[in-house]
């Protein structure tokens, strides 16, 4: 209960504070402390949930179970390391005049508001509020994407706003349809949009209406997950925004959208008694995997290239949650964790690389290892990790995904393998050229803050070599919860 107050309170208070504090050092520290507080709170909550099962908070308006506490902890952790990273990074942007102190305030306040939206969505027990929180997180990040006010960033932010705005409206339509089905069973009122009550009576909901509702939810939240063909906003938003924003977009926001979708799927599965929702997710997942793999090869901008890799991995998770067996859910959650860790670390590194070379164009980034070994090796290790090389955690989760797919839908393995290979080939088409070779004369030394990057890699490595027992138990609990329809 107290932990929970901290979790939602800290980012909100910090957002208000930071909206008025332009001092570069102090505001960066407030940002870090607020994020660290939420991380402590999330660990506190995790311990409670693992000991005593689901917790209901504030008259059942919020709930925390094994599934969402895992995401809350992941979000809080990545938010903390991002805050640590963004301090010197944003100071550098301030010094070279890319932003002024007003924009710095905007950046800090919106980052915290974004984190608040993430926690609100993950812990809310009400579907309406889940929808609202995704919208809060979207609006906050729209303002962050346009932070530099360059023509490119404004065009990207507008595209992001319009496409995700429409996507999320469709999700609202899906929510209204779901309410239409559930208000027949649970009566008119908040009860009919409450997850915990919906799960308890999911078998009584009308299957036809729920199927139609899920189509809208799939397209709506799928837009936010970055699934093809609604993915076009994602590379632009990642490429044009400041680096810490790219890191949290890939590492966190996409997870929240997928989380909401999986919650809906749990409901629809029980209601229809068929594998309709899962099939839809698998279809979108496979399509996006291939689209992302091929698109990756055509990129010139380093952040765009890695954002297509994010689409690829989100597609993989969507597919795996679609399979829906406990093994698959376990694999998908592990993949969510490892992807968030590795991808945000890659974006941190890429941000430094772009600062050092003064460009995001890949053909102009050369000789990073000779120039600044920390950055160069970071990029190379990160790329190996995200490509799924052992012994990193992504390998473990992808291995599990393949096992789950082989067990239930063997033919999909061919598509999966093809998609992953194409994407890996794409990554290694560009990355070695950037890391090795001569240092170009326009390269300059930057103060690189690689600590968060190596912490992320170390954790990904740990997850790859041996998953700690308590964590495995935690994932098992959550995987069984998802497969069992939330009860």
């Amino acid at each position, binding site marked *: 209960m107290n932990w929970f107050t901290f979790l939602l309170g800290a980012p909100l208070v910090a957002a208000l504070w930071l909206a008025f504090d332009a001092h570069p050092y102090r505001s960066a520290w407030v940002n870090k402390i607020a994020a660290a507080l939420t991380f402590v709170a999330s660990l506190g909550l995790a311990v409670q949930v693992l000991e005593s099962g689901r917790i209901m908070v504030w008259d059942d308006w919020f709930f925390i179970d094994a599934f969402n506490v895992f995401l809350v902890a992941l979000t809080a952790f990545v938010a903390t390391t991002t805050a640590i990273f963004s301090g010197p990074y944003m100071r550098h942007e301030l010094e070279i005049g890319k932003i002024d102190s007003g924009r710095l305030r905007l950046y800090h306040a919106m980052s915290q508001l974004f984190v608040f939206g993430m926690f609100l969505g993950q812990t809310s027990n*009400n*579907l*309406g*509020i889940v*929808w*609202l929180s995704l*919208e*809060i997180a979207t*609006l906050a990040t*729209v*303002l962050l994407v*346009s932070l530099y*006010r*360059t*023509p*490119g960033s*404004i*065009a990207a*932010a*507008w595209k992001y*706003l*319009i496409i995700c*705005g*429409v996507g999320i*409206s*469709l999700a*609202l*339509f899906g*929510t*209204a*349809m779901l*309410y*239409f089905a559930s*208000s*027949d069973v649970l009566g*008119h*009122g*908040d009860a*009919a*949009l409450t997850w915990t009550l919906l799960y308890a009576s999911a078998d009584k909901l*009308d299957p*036809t*209406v729920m199927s*139609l509702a899920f189509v809208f939810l799939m397209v709506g939240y799928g837009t936010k997950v970055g699934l093809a063909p609604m993915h076009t906003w994602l590379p632009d938003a990642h490429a044009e925004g400041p680096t810490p924003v790219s890191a949290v977009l890939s590492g966190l926001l996409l997870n929240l959208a997928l989380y909401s979708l999986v919650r809906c799927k749990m409901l629809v599965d029980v209601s229809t008694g068929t594998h309709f929702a899962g099939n839809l997710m698998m279809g979108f997942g496979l399509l996006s995997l291939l689209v992302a793999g091929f698109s990756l090869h055509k990129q010139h901008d380093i952040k765009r290239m890695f954002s297509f890799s994010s689409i690829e991995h989100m597609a993989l998770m969507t597919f795996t949650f679609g399979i829906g067996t406990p093994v698959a859910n376990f694999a998908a959650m592990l993949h969510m964790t490892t992807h968030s860790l590795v991808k945000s670390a890659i974006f941190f590194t890429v941000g430094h690389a772009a600062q050092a070379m003064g460009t995001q164009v890949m053909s102009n980034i050369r000789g990073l290892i000779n120039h600044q070994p920390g950055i160069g090796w970071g990029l190379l290790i990160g790329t190996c990790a995200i490509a799924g090389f052992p012994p990193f955690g992504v390998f473990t989760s992808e291995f599990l995904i393949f096992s789950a797919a082989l067990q239930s839908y063997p033919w999909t393995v061919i598509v999966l393998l093809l998609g992953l290979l194409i994407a890996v080939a794409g990554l290694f088409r560009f990355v070695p050229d950037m890391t090795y070779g001569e240092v170009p004369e326009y390269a300059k030394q930057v103060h690189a803050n690689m600590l968060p990057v190596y912490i992320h890699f170390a954790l990904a490595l740990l997850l790859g070599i041996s998953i700690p027992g308590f964590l495995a138990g935690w994932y098992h609990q959550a995987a069984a919860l998802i497969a069992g329809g939330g009860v």
Partner: protein
Amino acid sequence: MSQILLQQIITMGAALMLLISFALLAQKRMLSLLHWFALQGIVLAAVTALVAYTSDNTELYVSAAITLVLKGMLLPWVLWKIIRQMHVHREVEPLVNIPVTMLIAAALVVFSYQVTLPIEHLSHLITRNTIAVAMANVLLGMLMMITRKKAITQVIGFLAIENSLFFAGVGATYGMPLVAELGVAFDVLIASVVFGLFFYQIRDTFESLDLNKMENK
């Protein structure tokens, strides 16, 4: 008695909403587009209030009031201010000519009825037409967003979609719970502020609100 009345109100509301969506697509001038948009907000508020009256749902009065003030008055007025202040060209400038747009729109309505057919048969509530019309309206709003050049017309299309969603909520389920309704209203307000901010940023950066210029940066 009141059930029949309620049914008639919702059906009429659905018809009006659909009509207005077509009218929005047919407009050539910005000012008349905004008039129709405001009218849509007012019709929505009126239907909501009538449903609130006949179904004795007091929460819906709040939604109706918010809708009237926000969508019937405030947003159209603010948009008009922006158009005047930023000297936006007063013509709508469609990318696809209007008769073709209308034909596509008609096809979309038929499609919506086709998709929602299985639902209507098993509805306990009075939802004949409403879900189909709401879905058609959403699709028409999207059509408007993709066939118009300017940032402002895109936003009007977006807001028209929100209106149709709201109508779906009121018509099919007598309104979503108040928390959800308030959340959505709040969201529309904030989103509009963000849209407004962007109009200025886009104009300052590209010296026009024409989206073609943004694509060819």
